[in-house]
């Protein structure tokens, strides 16, 4: 069986700095993988290279066996890749429903329709409301995003990614900057996702990461330093030294 995501000795160099240093990684179909490591370990850069935001300096990325290393980002999305951003990246000038509508039509040809108003697509509206309901924001569908709290925006961030119907979902610190109770909320939403969706998630919060993930990859200084089940990783002395030593 082919892996959902397969990365082969991927590297990204900025000037003289190797932000990502020959990382190889395989995530199986349906797997939930957490990516942890101290600040500056190269996790987000690795994410950007996988999702197409950045071009890797060398190495390759495969999605369901197809080489997508040089594919533009929007085409990756069509192949079933979804992502969230570490720094909330939603459309603040639009309403929540419009945010979701953009995600819903983004992967099909309706995004090019110019001669009919959006309101002529009741299915999109319905889907948007359903999508908002899934993250508990349905009653705010017509509010502008401006009025949302930070925590609610994080929920919308997740809803946007989910509504491109991803088969593989990359979550970049979904709980970044949230209060413990808000974390729990997001955590629950992620946990409730259907198992068919392969998850790759950067997470600082060890409890969240370990409680959610099937397997954990630990990065440090651009390299993978350990990989295994949460238990294995937790008991790895090297990891404890580098990572838990700080906590």
């Amino acid at each position, binding site marked *: 069986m082919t892996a959902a995501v397969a990365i082969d000795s991927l590297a990204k160099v900025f000037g003289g700095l190797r932000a990502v240093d020959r990382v190889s990684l395989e995530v199986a179909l349906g797997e939930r993988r957490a990516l942890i490591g101290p600040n500056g370990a190269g996790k987000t850069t690795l994410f950007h290279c996988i999702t197409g935001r950045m071009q890797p300096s060398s190495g390759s990325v495969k999605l369901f066996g197809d080489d997508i290393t040089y594919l*533009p980002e929007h085409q990756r999305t069509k192949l079933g890749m979804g992502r969230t951003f570490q720094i909330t990246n*939603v459309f603040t000038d639009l309403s929540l429903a419009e945010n979701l509508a953009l995600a819903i039509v983004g992967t099909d040809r*309706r995004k090019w329709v110019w*001669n009919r108003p959006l309101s002529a697509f009741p299915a999109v509206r319905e889907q948007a409301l359903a999508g908002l309901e899934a993250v508990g924001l349905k009653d705010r569908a017509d509010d502008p995003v401006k009025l949302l709290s930070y925590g609610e925006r994080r929920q919308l961030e997740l809803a946007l990614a989910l509504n491109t119907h991803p088969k593989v979902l990359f979550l970049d610190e979904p709980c970044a900057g949230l209060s413990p109770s808000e974390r729990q909320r997001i955590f629950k939403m992620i946990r409730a996702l259907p198992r068919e969706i392969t998850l790759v998630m950067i997470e600082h919060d060890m409890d969240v990461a370990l409680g959610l993930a099937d397997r954990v990859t630990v990065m440090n200084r651009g390299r993978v330093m350990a990989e295994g089940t949460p238990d294995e990783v937790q008991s790895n002395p090297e990891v404890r030294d580098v990572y838990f030593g700080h906590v």
Partner: protein
Amino acid sequence: MKVRSYGVVMALIAIAAALAAPLVADPFWMTLITQIYIYGLLALSVDLLLGHAGLYSLCQASFFAVAAYTTAILQVRYGYPTIVAAPAGLIAGTLLAVLYGSAVRTRGVYFILITIALGYIIWGAVYRWASFTGGDNGITNVPPPSVAGFSIASQTAYYYFVLTVVILCAFGYRILIRSPFGLSLRGIKGSESRMQSLGYRTTMHLYAAFVISGLIASLAGVLYVYYNRFINPVAASFQISVEVSLMAIVGGSGTIVGPFIGAGVFLGLRNWVSSFFELHTAVMGAVFIATVLWAPSGIVGLVERWRPGIGKPKDQP
């Protein structure tokens, strides 16, 4: 649906006023209002990019001028009828937009600068290629538009013609910006990176918007040449591009009426102030400074602010 009915009522009042204008206004005001419609349309073309897609194009005068020149040259020099000359103008301006559209590969300041450069190329061409464009003197005596023996010769008739075209354009524009495509432009303005990750090839969307904007500018150009019966290189100048974008901002960027209100304020002010105050350019400059600093959403934005209780989505039943 209080808001919608309010908007509809306002639109109807505006249209009724526009229809009645020739009955009360003297010929000078009629020409001025016609001019406002045409420049408003050009400002609207700027605002499709500026207010929706977040791109600031400073070469809109190029499409305007190329369309106007094409129509004028075909009519005056080669004697083609309006039915050929006007569509040819539209096509020529739009083709230029298809060509210049490659500018959407850049963003931000670079986009602004490249469009300035592209604008200067057209200006230089119409200015220097005197044997074809009439150079500085331009092309005069463009006949009134006439189709199948029916000529729109009187000022009032042309006024109504322009009004009809502008209203149709405004409706079309309204559908466009409310369509999924229109929404995608606002999405790109909000966050291009997010749009890409949602599956949009953003450059293509911007390119399409650029071409549509060029088409609207070309339409304004064709309307202009039949209005003024005269065209010269000033129409292609950087100054015009700047002025129409200022109209869009002053009126209210991202709205449909805004650019027209802006055109009215700009042209009205210029004609009014210049009749008694020497430093009228300074007055104009001061208006822009004030708009940018204190009323970035323009006159429409100010009106919205002073209209409590209406226009806020929360108040919907």
